[in-house]
């Protein structure tokens, strides 16, 4: 691997996607994590380092119920779809 100064050509091709995904994908997700620590004052979200939101969610039964149900559905569909795919593939590959 040769390390030299990147050419204009390589930057024009590679940077747009990087900038787009950083600005509109990575940053919003990080921002979402950041505002999970914010608190509400006077009906406004204010920057803060507050673990109240996390505490409330993690100690609430409904959250864990929903989480367990999601996990169960995800596991079931993963197993089923892989089984479907395996059988279909076996059919396609039969007699080869």
């Amino acid at each position: 691997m040769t390390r030299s100064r990147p050419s204009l050509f390589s930057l024009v091709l590679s940077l747009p996607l990087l900038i787009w995904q950083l600005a509109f994908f990575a940053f919003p997700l990080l921002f979402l994590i950041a505002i999970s620590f914010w608190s509400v004052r006077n009906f406004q979200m204010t920057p803060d380092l507050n673990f109240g939101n996390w505490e409330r969610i993690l100690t609430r039964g409904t959250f864990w119920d929903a989480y367990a149900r999601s996990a169960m559905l995800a596991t079931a569909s993963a197993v089923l779809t892989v089984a479907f795919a395996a059988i279909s593939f076996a059919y396609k590959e039969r007699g080869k």
Partner: protein
Amino acid sequence: MTGNRNRLINAGLKLYILVCVLFIFAPILGSFVFSLNSDRFPSLPLGEVSTEWYRLIWEDPFVWAGFFNTVIVGLIVAVIATVLGFGGAYTDFRYNFLGKKVYLALSLLPPTIPVVILGLAMLAFLSRVNLSDSTVSVIIAHGVMCSPFAMAIIRLRLSQMDRDLEAASWNLGGNEWATLRHVIIPFTKPAILAALFITMAVSFDEFAVAWFVSGLNETLPVKILGFLQGQVSPRINAIGSLAFLSSITLIILAQMLLRNASKDRP
């Protein structure tokens, strides 16, 4: 093949595939059948064949507004996502650099993030920078979600390319730009077109994120939810059938392009 011995198993597997396909398409087929049914409620036995619901949506300005928004967003997103995806795919094909893994992860991750989380994050972010509630915000969000598809398709095509072609072009005096224009783009053209169609179809069908960020400029899928909440009308079946038809057309076009492309591989 081991001959007759497996005939029963073969038939069973064929039946199984048929059942799978039916299982996938039955709801869509049902929606299509009921869209042509004159009865107000989807029930058996079927009433008369009628195009009443298609006429109603044809005359509905809300449907047209939603459709118009969807098409505008879809076209712009297709171009943006394909350009971004092409750049990413070529970068992966051609260069090795520090942090390439991070670059690829960042480019290809969006489809793995739950759409509700993505939508929420987009809304939180875009409303901060005063870009929410507009068509632009849907385009931004769909650009994020669609470019990985474009990148994957074009990357696949590039991987079929003979690396010597590029070197030959440089040898013949073409600089990087000329090589891109006369060698790379012509070679990847089927994939580029396919990426345009696929990303447009993805944008067409995308609901959750559009629902979060579209505000008043709703796309068609968001409008359909509005319809469902208002009243259960067979018009939804008609819209659904048309939406399915346009998406499947785009997908089939893309598939045909890719299939032909891999046939004439050097």
